[in-house]
């Protein structure tokens, strides 16, 4: 059964509502102000998002959520991307919530209720090397009495320095296991890194960290049952954010082409620039289709969404990078200055390109599904 690739009326309304709120509460200058103050998170902004139902976008209404679904989460992420909004939305409301949704016990339900209320934030700790690969895990969780003892190091833990809880992927006797740990547990040391996109990411060392069976999300040795859907939801929402980012950078660039004058005319009159801008618009349009499709499949058949999600992430990664590179080039010298916002777009696009799998990773997934 094919899905309709048209935005429903309520999705258009959600986008408009989000745009209205974010233009006011979190324009790019908000990120700039945080960066200049040496901060990576605005708790008041997140509390406001929680009040609007965004923190609980994937939490059932019975647990205090708004239960709008994956396509709606993508709509919100896309609008956030347009003005580079920094928040725990992806890590907490999308990735952690999707993982917890797979469990269905009372403890998970309570955690989901706290997510929806904006009372707790999460970070996902998977990477151990410079490239995303959830199967390449050396961190261990050795059985110890009734529980486990975790040792290892995670890097590029997005939102990891400030999150209240950590979802940690570690190797157990027969496979990989996902743990839901208190970030302040004994033996956890968090090293906040200064990232190019001015957001929270940490290197985290685990030294004899104790966990009980109750800290395991899902089944021991079967992390992927829980993690795979969580990753897919996160990858799709990140792709949506990057499509929004591309659209934001593109809009700035087109505005600039219409007002900047050289040789006595607006530079937007030059065909050399017109065609590049038009090509970029095409790429943003095509990418939007892939995002819409991924959201639809996540909502209708989560288990069949893998290729659609990888397609969306690959395409969004490529388009966002094209948009910021063209953005800086078409702005010329001013695009290189810190005072101008385009640089923020470029730096976030690079981080978004790597997080949760880069272009090569996802193109390879697509190729595999297509029988390469």
């Amino acid at each position: 059964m094919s899905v309709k690739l048209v935005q429903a009326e309520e999705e258009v309304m959600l986008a408009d509502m989000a745009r209205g709120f974010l233009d006011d509460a979190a324009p790019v200058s908000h990120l700039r102000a945080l960066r200049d103050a040496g901060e990576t998170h605005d708790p008041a902004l997140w509390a406001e998002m929680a009040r609007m139902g965004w923190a609980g976008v994937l939490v059932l209404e019975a647990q205090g959520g708004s239960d709008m679904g994956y396509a709606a989460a993508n709509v919100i992420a896309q609008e956030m991307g347009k003005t580079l909004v920094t928040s725990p939305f992806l890590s907490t409301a999308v990735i952690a919530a999707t993982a917890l949704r797979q469990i269905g016990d009372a403890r998970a339900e309570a955690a989901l209720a706290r997510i929806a209320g904006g009372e707790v934030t999460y970070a996902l700790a998977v990477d151990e090397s410079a490239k995303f690969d959830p199967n390449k895990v050396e961190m261990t969780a050795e059985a110890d009495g009734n529980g486990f003892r975790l040792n290892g190091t995670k890097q590029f833990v997005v939102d990891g320095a400030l999150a209240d809880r950590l979802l940690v992927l570690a190797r157990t006797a027969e496979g990989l296991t996902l743990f839901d740990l208190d970030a302040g547990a004994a033996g956890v040391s968090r090293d906040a890194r200064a990232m190019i996109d001015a957001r929270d990411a940490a290197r985290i060392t685990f030294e004899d960290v104790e966990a009980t069976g109750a800290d395991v999300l899902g089944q021991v040795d079967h992390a992927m049952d829980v993690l795979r859907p969580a990753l897919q939801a996160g990858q799709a929402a990140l792709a949506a954010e990057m499509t929004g980012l591309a659209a934001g950078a593109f809009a700035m660039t087109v505005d600039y082409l219409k007002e900047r004058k050289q040789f006595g005319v607006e530079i937007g009159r030059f065909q050399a620039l017109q065609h590049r801008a038009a090509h970029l618009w095409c790429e943003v349009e095509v990418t939007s289709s892939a995002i819409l499709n991924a959201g639809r499949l996540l909502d209708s058949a989560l288990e069949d969404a893998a290729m659609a999600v990888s397609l969306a992430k690959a395409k969004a990664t490529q388009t966002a990078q094209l948009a910021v590179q063209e953005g800086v080039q078409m702005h010329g010298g001013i695009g290189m200055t810190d005072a101008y916002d385009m640089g923020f777009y470029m730096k976030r696009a690079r981080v978004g390109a790597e997080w949760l799998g880069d272009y090569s990773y996802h193109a390879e997934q697509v190729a595999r599904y297509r029988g390469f």
Partner: protein
Amino acid sequence: MTDTMTDFRKDLRDWLEAYCPAEMRDGAASEETICWGGKDWVFSSDAQREWLNACVAEGYTVPTWPKEYGGAGLNRDQQKIFDEEIARIGARFPLQSFGIWMLGPALLHFGTHEQKLHYLPPIARGEVRWCQGYSEPGAGSDLASVQTFGADAGDHWVVNGQKIWTSYADKADWIFALVRTDREAPKHKGISFLLIDMNDPGVDTRPIKLISGASPFCETFFTDVKVPKEQIVGDVNRGWDVAKYLLTHEREMISGSGMLQAGGRPLGAVLAEGDAGLEDATLRAAAMRCEVDQLAMGLTLERYRDMAEAGQGAGDASAMLKYLGTELNKQRHELMMMADGSDALEWGDRPADWLRTKANSIEGGTSEVMLSIISRRVLGLPA
């Protein structure tokens, strides 16, 4: 409503079972398997003739045209079911032609009732084959500068000039052509959309051999050709409106139809058959990239179709579909040529198809013209 649709599907399925010959169910859509129709048409098989006749009787050669003009009068929902059922059994198109694709839609939109009654049914029955007379040696991308001139001679025009890239003009019965009927007016406002009988004295046609070895296109010459005044679509000097309408239509068709359907087969599978296979890391990486782009493009076509169904027309975005669709098709064929190495250098379908794709981004408006349309009409950049 739903019950009516279910009935329609069931009846259609029964009808296809009874009337679509087995030979016509191979899903073939290559140049050789097309039934173009026309006065001189020679059917390639009895099955091809039977299939055409069966469809003509039901109006299924042009399913969405009104019944009085030779169609089946299907609404959008029925058309979707029709397309699905045709695709389900892999039935060939019973008839394809520029009459169906282009003149028909133009007449349905701009023609008088009498013109529709006169011209449309023979198109639907495959009795008259049309070709398109737009480009001229001096008017390619700058189409509105056509110089073929129709001098007013009272109850008719006397047409003189030359058209180029007239597809299958040597096999066509009639041509619809852009002819300048006012040399004083601004270039867009002095063109008329005329219908000309290719058998008229003074019409002469000559095939052009292309790099692929094929000659699907011709040059067509008009020397003192008399065209009666009633053989015009739309108003005198307003032919550009008709042409523009058709160009948008053509773009949607090129981007949405045959050329991208070839993209249905995964590129990896196609390349794996070549000698280079997928072991060539550079080729594999390029193929993966092309596959990603093609899948995203396919979703975009689907999105625009869904939007059209929801009443949101593609409008100028058809320029994007045409631009990206044709560029991707060229890329795909480049990769297939690379995969086949020297095997693909001997004349055969692969090199001929590869060479043919080079025209994709030229015909119906070049990629550069598409980008200019987007830049002006979508982005609002100054001209």
